């Protein structure tokens, strides 16, 4: 087919940031998938709860302390995370490096407390359906913390290499920060479910 040139794209930037980047949309789509997954597990929790004569089944509700501690840590981590995202937007490599190291360390904290959270459920996954669903909720969320932490660590290493100074990398840092916000946001309903619904 013959062609006629009607538009010059030469002036466009070599990489889009934020909503102009495909990775941003990709991250969003994966968040939608996982968000649906979380919503469904919570739905399963509510469904089983509605069937049971007593809830939790044959156990007291879980201890509040470790879970609440994780919640506080996660909520506090939002502050450095949002700062980091802002530094990435400003493309300030020095601050981004500091921020990435910080987030790598902060990311391990909830995992440490999580180790105590599982016993605090006071039920094993194979005791009954209640145990199965709370372990699944907690396990699923823990997997998300772990994967995001690994992602953060790799990215932290990357920003210290020669590949660090590029808009693409700053975009990655922003997407990573967005994902951490998502991990924190999904925790809140799960926390309410595991610790407070069981007390109603």
């Amino acid at each position: 087919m013959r062609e006629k040139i009607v538009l010059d794209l030469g002036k466009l930037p070599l990489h889009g940031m934020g909503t102009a980047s495909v990775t941003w949309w990709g991250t969003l789509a994966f968040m939608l998938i996982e968000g649906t997954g979380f919503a469904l597990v919570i739905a399963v929790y509510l469904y089983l709860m509605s069937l049971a004569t007593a809830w939790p089944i044959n156990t007291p509700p879980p201890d509040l302390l470790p879970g609440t501690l994780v919640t506080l840590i996660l909520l506090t981590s939002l502050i450095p995370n949002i700062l980091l995202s802002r530094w990435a937007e400003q493309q300030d490599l020095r601050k981004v490096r500091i921020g990435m190291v910080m987030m790598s360390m902060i990311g391990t904290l909830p995992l440490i407390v999580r180790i105590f959270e599982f016993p605090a459920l006071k039920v094993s996954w194979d005791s009954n359906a209640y145990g199965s669903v709370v372990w699944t909720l907690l396990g699923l969320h823990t997997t998300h913390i772990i994967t995001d932490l690994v992602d953060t660590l790799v990215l932290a290493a990357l920003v210290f290499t020669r590949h660090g100074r590029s808009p693409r990398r700053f975009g990655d840092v922003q997407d990573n920060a967005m994902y951490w916000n998502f991990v924190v946001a999904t925790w809140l309903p799960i926390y309410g479910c595991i610790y407070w619904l069981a007390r109603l």
Partner: protein
Amino acid sequence: MKPSAAAPEQRDIDVERAQLTDALAETWKTPSGLWGALATVDHKIIGRRYIFTAFVFLALGGVLAALMRIQLAQPEARLLGPDRYNQIFTMHGANMMFLFAVPVMEAVAVYLAPLMVGTRNIAFPRLNAFSYWIYLAGGALLWIAFALDMGPDVGWFAYVPLSGPQYGTGKRADIWAQMITFTEISALAVAVELVVTIFKQRAPGMTLDRIPVFVWAMLVTSFLVIMAMPAIVLASTSLILDRLVGTHFYNPAEGGDVLLWQHLFWFFGHPEVYIIFLPAVGMVSTMIEPFARRPAFGYLGLVMALIATGILAFGLWVHHMFVAGLPRLGDSFFTASSMAIAIPAGIQIFCWLATLWDGRPVFKSPLLFIIGFIITFVIGGLTGVMVASVPFDTQVHDTYFVVAHFHYVLIGGAVFPLLGAVHYWFPKLTGRMMSEALGQWSFWLIFVGFNATFFPMHILGLEGMPRRIYTYQPDLPWHGLNLFVSVSAVILTAGFLLFFINVMRSARFGEIALDNPWDAPTLEWATTSPPPSYNFAMIPVVGSLHPVWDDRDGLPVADGLRTDRRELIVTTLATAEPQAREASPQNSIWPLWAAIATTIMLIWSIFSPWAVVWGSIPAAVALIGWFWPKGTPEDES
């Protein structure tokens, strides 16, 4: 953002046409040889592979169908015992749904959607390569297990407790569940790629109301995949947990629930059927234009019907559970919502009829398949409306009436358009035309054979024949019709065989195709047949819904892209205004490594929960290798 002045960059405006295409071909090429084939991220190569593989699974599933039909031709037949038969119908259903129908539709879109929206590669091309490998591994897992007499035997929806730890002994149900995990991962990955491609990589000027209907259909389908598949991932994972580590999700003795499985499965399973069906109607809406020789009537209506079906799809799942003993009032709500699907379905049928009415039809094989589709799909849709009625369904649920319904909608509603689409897009994929004479023959054989095979099943169902029985007793009045059905299936199979022969013959000896042999209006026909590795030498600029029809004196295009790195255009969501020149990743072998690592982890986890822990390490390594920058021009910006 500062342009990277350091690199000596090469732009398309600076060079002659011949040099331009040479430079682009060099930048976008897939090296020949095995390594090149394994590392490629070209959506066309992967799409072709995907389509080919899916059709292999169709043929395999068809062979299983033939075995079932031989067994059922006579009462008390001894060809297959119950154990084999149960594996065979489960394999047939699971294979057709998860390894053929869903993947083939996504595969066609992997090939076509980037071309139709005028971009150079799909978004996240490496993920695309990965998703193909994972799909292949899932299919191989299922079929190898079947060959080892370990094929699942619990039906394609694997109801608990039959598939649970107590009654589903051995590893058969785990194979089923893990095959699901494979296909879901790959389907989800493709859905994300398609959404982002369609949202962000459309050619400049392709506003929302200029998107071809097939692309719209794939967008809606991808959202269905994204919202529905997590339910089956959750279901199959919790089933494996019940079986492997002793959780009690589905064990009523410990607070679990048997119907929870059905809710989760069908919350996915119903949208699943529209995941198969919507791409097919998208194909019809797109193909009908060149053969009716006018634009499809009611673009807005067609698109709205797709979206409405997509939304309603999530409110229907209970219609598969009408006799499970849920409250009758709730059931009636699902009757209403299921019937409501007839409205968007009707809108589409009526719009196509109007298009044909006002158009000037050209009776080539793709149009024949469209006509066959309308005739048969309406039967299937109407039987769908019948089973949507709770009282009606109490008589026909789990009988051959339902078997007839879903083959009418699956084959009539999805496979017919797909076969039409193969005839239609074959020249684009291969550069050669399919034989029209063979095409017409195979259409008639399939059309007649199909109706003769499946129509009598309605009657069998009403006469009391349940589905999933490996045999029936001679004193039941079913043998006459069953024999008729089995004989008709021979005609049907002959039709499919002829179709396969036509494809294989035409791929080698077919007439050389023009760039736009059907005089079609959408962008994939604006490039060569088959398209070059970079799809378009210059990105098209779109001014209407039918760019190829409207700009016959020359396609408007844009320049200014670099030729020394893989570059494509990111545009805004609604109005498709250019936002950035984005680099598209190079070929890479890492997706294959990642797929192998994932495969090992998933198969191992059928046997031990620790596989998830140890197996994730190589997977993580492969993923790091995948994303770590290699210092190619694509990494700069």
